[in-house]
C-alpha cells in the first residue's frame, strides 16, 4: 500500500511519499523516509520491497556523487534519470551466479530535480525500466486515487501554495478511500535553492523520534 506521487510547479518540483514500513499485516515504523536527497538539487522517491528500495537508491546516490567527484560538475536531472533507468534495465535481464538467475530490482522511482537552464523536472521510472519525463505522476495504489485528482486540478506553472493544496487534496482522498491507507506522509521539494523537506502530514503521531 505504498503511496508515492509528485508534480512539477513554477520553478519547483514536489514529491510526496507515505512513511510506513510494513511487513505483512504489521507496521514496523510510521516515520520511514522514502525520499532520498540524491544531491543538492535532486530528490529520488522510491517505493518497493524494503531491501531493494534502500540499496538501489544508495547505489544511485553513490554513483551520482562519484560522477561529481570525477568530473567536477554535477549530473543534470535528465542524465541522472537515464543512468538510473539504465541500471534498472541492466539488472532486469542480466543472469547472475552459479545457477543462473535473474535478480531485478523491484523498485518504482520518481526522480525530481532542478537544473539552472532547464528548470524543474520530474521523471517516472518504473521497475521495468520505463522512463518518462512527466508533469505529474503517481505509483502504487495512490495512482488510482490521486492521478485523476491531479489531472483535474493541475495546470502548468502552479504556485507552491496551489501545489501543496493539491497534494493535500490527494492525501485526503487516499486517506478516505484506500482500505489500508498509510497514516503519515512526507513532502519534499526541490527548487533553485536546493532539495529539502517541505512538510509532514501526520494523522498518527510517530512512536519513534523523527531522526530514526
Amino acid at each position, binding site marked *: 500500500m505504498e503511496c508515492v506521487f509528485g508534480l512539477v510547479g513554477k520553478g519547483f518540483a514536489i514529491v510526496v511519499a507515505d512513511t510506513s*514500513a510494513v511487513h505483512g499485516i504489521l507496521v514496523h*515504523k510510521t516515520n*520511514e523516509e522514502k525520499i*532520498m536527497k540524491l544531491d543538492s538539487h535532486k530528490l529520488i522517491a522510491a517505493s518497493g520491497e524494503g531491501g531493494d528500495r534502500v540499496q538501489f537508491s544508495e547505489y544511485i546516490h553513490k554513483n551520482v556523487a562519484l560522477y561529481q567527484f570525477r568530473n567536477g560538475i554535477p549530473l543534470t536531472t535528465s542524465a541522472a534519470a537515464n543512468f538510473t533507468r539504465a541500471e534498472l534495465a541492466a539488472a532486469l535481464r542480466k543472469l547472475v551466479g552459479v545457477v543462473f538467475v535473474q*535478480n531485478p530490482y523491484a523498485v518504482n522511482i520518481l526522480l525530481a530535480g532542478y537544473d539552472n537552464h532547464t528548470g524543474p523536472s520530474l521523471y517516472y521510472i518504473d521497475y521495468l525500466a520505463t522512463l518518462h519525463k512527466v508533469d505529474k505522476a503517481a505509483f502504487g495504489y495512490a495512482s488510482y486515487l490521486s492521478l485523476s485528482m491531479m489531472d483535474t486540478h493541475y495546470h502548468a506553472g502552479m504556485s507552491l501554495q496551489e501545489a501543496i493544496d493539491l497534494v493535500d487534496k490527494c492525501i485526503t482522498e487516499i486517506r478516505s478511500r484506500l482500505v489500508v491507507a498509510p497514516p503519515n506522509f512526507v513532502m519534499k521539494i526541490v527548487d533553485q535553492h536546493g532539495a529539502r523537506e517541505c512538510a509532514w502530514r501526520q494523522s498518527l503521531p510517530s*512512536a519513534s523520534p523523527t531522526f530514526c
Partner: protein
Amino acid sequence: MKLDTSGLESFSTLTAPGDDVVGEFSAPPSFQLPNSNDFDGFVKEAIQMVKPAKGTTTLAFIFKDGVIVAADSRASMGGYIYSVKKIIEINPYMLGTMAGGAADCQFWHRNLGIKCRLHELANKRRISVTGASKLLANILYSYRGMGLSVGTMIAGWDETVIHMSNYHMAFAQLGPSLYYVDSEGGRLKGTRFSVGSGSPYAYGVLDNGYRYDLSVEEAVELGRRAIYHATFRDGASGGVVSVYHVGPEGWKKWTGDDVGDLHYQYYPVVPSTVEQEMVEATGA
C-alpha cells in the same frame, strides 16, 4: 455437496411409527453447502497472510536506560520441539536476536562478530551499531533470492555516534541504538520492534505498556510479559523467556523464566465454586 450431520442427532431414529415420510426415515439429516469451488478459501487466505514464516517471538525496545532485548526459546522441526538460545551475543556491548532459520542466524551473527572485531582492530575503536547493522544488511542483500531466512534485530550501546545519513544532516547521538535487519535486505532504525510469528501479540502488550522513562526493572518486566503473552497465544513460540538489558557498560542477562511457571505466576489457580455436581445417570 451435502454435509452429514447425523452425528449431531441422537434421537433422530425415534420417530413415531406410521410416518408417511418413509424415505426420510433412513437418510441422515443434512444441509446443502453453497455452490462454490472453494467455500473456505477466503478464510484460508486470511490465515495464510498472517501465517508465521518465522516461528518465534523476539522483541527489543529502547528506553532511557538502554535497550531491552527479549526472546522465547522454542524451535521446531516438523513435530519435534526443542529449545534454543535466540539472543546472540555478538560482542560485549551488542546483541542480536534470532528469527527464521536458526543456522542462518547463528552463522551470520557469528560472521558479523568477526567483522566487528576486525573493525575494532583496524580502527582502534568499537564499531557503531549503525555500522554493524549495515554490514549485516549488505551481506544478506547480496544473498537475496537464495533462500536465507533471517529476521534479526541488532541492539547495542554506542559511546559516541556521528549519525550521517542521506536524509538528514550529521549529528552526534550518544547511547542506545536498535536496528531491524532481514533477509530481504531491509534495514530499519527504530525504538521498538518485534519479530516472528508471535510478534503481533507481543506488540499489543509492548505498545500498551511502553514509556520512555521506565526503570530497568519495569522495562525487564515489560519485555518478559510481552513475550509470555505471545507464547500463550502463538503455538510456534514457547519455552523459556530470556530478557537482556544493554546499558552503557554492555549487556547483562536479567531473566530466564519458563513460560509455564510464568503463567501460574501471573494467573494463579483459584479454586472455583462448584455450581452443579455431576451425578450418575439413574437410567433413561
